[in-house]
């Protein structure tokens, strides 16, 4: 076990992947000498050379499309998208090629591409640097979508993603890059599979499902609620495609209540899927309608407004009160639409 930051744990995971399999190549903007704008690829080019760790021309479609070609040739490319908001120029190559090539060829062509995306807000950045585009990809058949919330998962999951024979979108919670924790670099048979959710804290009254940057926030909420006599079970979803609904279902059948949270806009976000699927699976167990605590249906606001936009402890606890049938901010609120 070594103490690492979340970003450092991904760096070490990438190092393992590069060392373990010489078909693994990294491709992205500024990932070489600079080590990436978040230093997640720090020193990797120095260690593995400019062929294994390639600075790419400034074009996301180019990066993803080139990775598809490398995959055709048997490589396992790991692409870095510099910030969430810059993934869209590569969207076509991801949705029409990366996601569909395996199905198109009925498995003849494997597409073991990993796309790393630092995502989410809370770092006071300018436009396009704080977005949460994961729902687009979770809605896209053929992709796997995962997100980590702590250094150990960051390390394990990046290695699992690269080892996976399917394309994986790996969403890295950028505001948690500096979060520290103990990391074991041994992956064994008992390592949690990439597609599994994790019960991060057990509880009996409310299930609180989160992923990526909001898992620490959810843990804080659970601690605060405990003071108030409410027992929250926190589930770190970890995988957004597939979603490990059996773990969520088990929890909700126990608690009867669900709050789901993410930074992305509410409409059509992951929370909608979680709420809908849990309702399908647990209708008879539910004491209240699942509640969503999410970013608003607005573009990501300027930094001075991001606190209003981002789900936080208070908004989570307000929703917990709501599903618990306690007085909350919507008590007495009248819908106008």
């Amino acid at each position, binding site marked *: 076990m070594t103490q690492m930051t979340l970003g450092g744990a991904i760096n070490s995971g990438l190092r393992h992947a590069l060392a373990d399999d010489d078909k693994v*190549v990294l491709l992205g903007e500024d990932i*070489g000498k600079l080590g990436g704008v978040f230093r997640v690829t720090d020193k990797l080019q120095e260690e593995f*050379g*400019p*062929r294994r760790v*390639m*600075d*790419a*021309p400034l*074009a996301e*479609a*180019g990066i*993803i*499309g*080139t*990775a*598809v*070609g*490398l*995959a*055709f*040739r*048997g*490589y396992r*490319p790991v692409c870095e998208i510099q910030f969430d908001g810059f993934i869209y*120029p590569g969207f*076509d*190559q991801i949705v*029409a*090629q990366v996601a*569909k090539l*395996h*199905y*198109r*060829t*009925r*498995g*003849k*062509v*494997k597409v*073991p591409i990993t796309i790393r995306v630092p995502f989410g807000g809370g770092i006071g950045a300018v436009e396009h640097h704080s977005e949460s585009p994961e729902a687009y990809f979770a809605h896209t*058949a*053929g992709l*796997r979508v995962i997100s980590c919330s702590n250094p150990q998962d960051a390390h394990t999951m990046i290695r699992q993603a690269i080892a*996976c*024979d*399917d394309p994986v979108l790996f969403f890295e919670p950028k505001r948690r890059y500096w979060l520290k924790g103990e990391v074991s670099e041994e992956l064994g048979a008992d390592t949690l599979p990439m*597609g599994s959710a994790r019960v991060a804290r057990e509880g009996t009254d409310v299930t609180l499902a989160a992923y990526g940057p909001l898992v620490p926030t959810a843990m804080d909420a659970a601690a605060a609620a405990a003071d108030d006599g409410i027992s929250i079970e926190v589930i770190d979803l970890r995988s957004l*495609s*597939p*979603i*490990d*609904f*059996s773990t969520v279902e088990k929890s909700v059948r126990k608690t009867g209540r669900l709050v789901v949270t993410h930074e992305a806009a509410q409409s059509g976000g992951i929370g909608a899927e979680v709420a809908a699927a849990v309702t399908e699976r647990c209708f008879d167990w539910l004491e209240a309608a699942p509640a969503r605590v999410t970013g608003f249906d607005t573009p990501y606001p300027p930094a001075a407004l991001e606190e209003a936009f981002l789900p936080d402890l208070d908004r989570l606890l307000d929703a917990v009160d709501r599903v618990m049938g306690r007085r909350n901010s919507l008590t007495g609120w009248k819908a106008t639409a």
Partner: protein
Amino acid sequence: MGYRAYRLKDFWQRRRMLSAAAIQARAVHERELRVIVSTTHEHTRTETLAEGSDQDMGPGQLEDIVQLIRPDGSRAESPGFDPWVADVTDDQLVDLYEDMVVIRRIDTEATALQRQGELALWAPLLGQEAAQIGSGRALRTDDFVFSSYRENGVAYTRGVDFGDMLKVWRGIASAGWDPYAIGMATPAVIIGAQTLHATGYALGCTYDGVDSVAIAYFGDGATSQGDVNEAMVFASSFQAPVVFFCQNNQWAISEPVGLQAHRHISDRAPGFGIPSMRVDGNDVLAVMAATRIALDRARSGGGPTFIEAVTYRMGPHTTSDDPKRYRPADDLEEWGRKDPISRLGRLLESRGALTGDVTKRVNDKADAVAREMRAACVALDKELDPMMVFDGVYEEPHSGLERQKSQYAAYLASFEGGEQ
């Protein structure tokens, strides 16, 4: 030393260790390229167009083009290109002729199958036989093709099974063949996307230390797409052994090439640091020579090359299209005179190589292929097991999809056993 050289240092070092033979070969092709490059320079003088002239000089015109066989079948000389096809015997020319006749027959037969309801759609390549055969036959089996939907002639040169060729058009598969079996990716429907795949594949060849080459086929319309331009950026930056093969057939569905470009399409690549050639795409020999030059450059570490093969789409865009709405009537007449098959036929005739026997053999072969293809077509299932809808989405199990599959199986089962 510049940063580029620094970055690619070991890359170049490996290159420098190329065998003396390869270096020799390279010297040859560099001489060739000077010929080509200066041709390209000539084109850059058509600047006037961008100045707003309405002269009839556009990306569809045939001036300044490499041609080895004239429309009348006579052999044109080209000191830059001739050496690259000097080894092509009359017998081999006959083979190329046969290929072209056969794929024209394939095209006709597939169109007929579509009319008869056996295929849902077909994208004819009529008129583009020389561009596809001349380039396809220049490839080695270990090269890899990334194409669009119209390259059935290229697929033929890769030895594709006829049933596999038709699956997509019959609606029973999203892609018909195993790319690794024939060294050809399944066609890209998203215009231009495959050019980046070719670039990445080519880079992989370099990494693997092999001299296989990737070739990307795309149309004149495709050159407007960001992907195609990014592919040139990446190929140039990484010096990937890739050949960009643009069939300028003058149309993107109903849009004339002049809407996509005001200059020769081949003029674009040099700005990206990629030498280009502009060849008569209806001249199978010129196309073959150009492709060989490009392949040789790529194999010997010379990086990407761009070929514009100027041809004409004589048919509709697909069997669903109605070109009468947009195509000037006299175009067909004009381009009919430049037909790729008849011009090679005339050359062969003039050399006494197209005897009655040969003609018969060629036609028999075409008939046989057509029969084989039709048989393969109707033998393909038209209806598939509904559960196949779930096959091959992922390589590893995906719990969400497994659940849907299991539920759908239950749904289908609920129809069995009659009224419930």
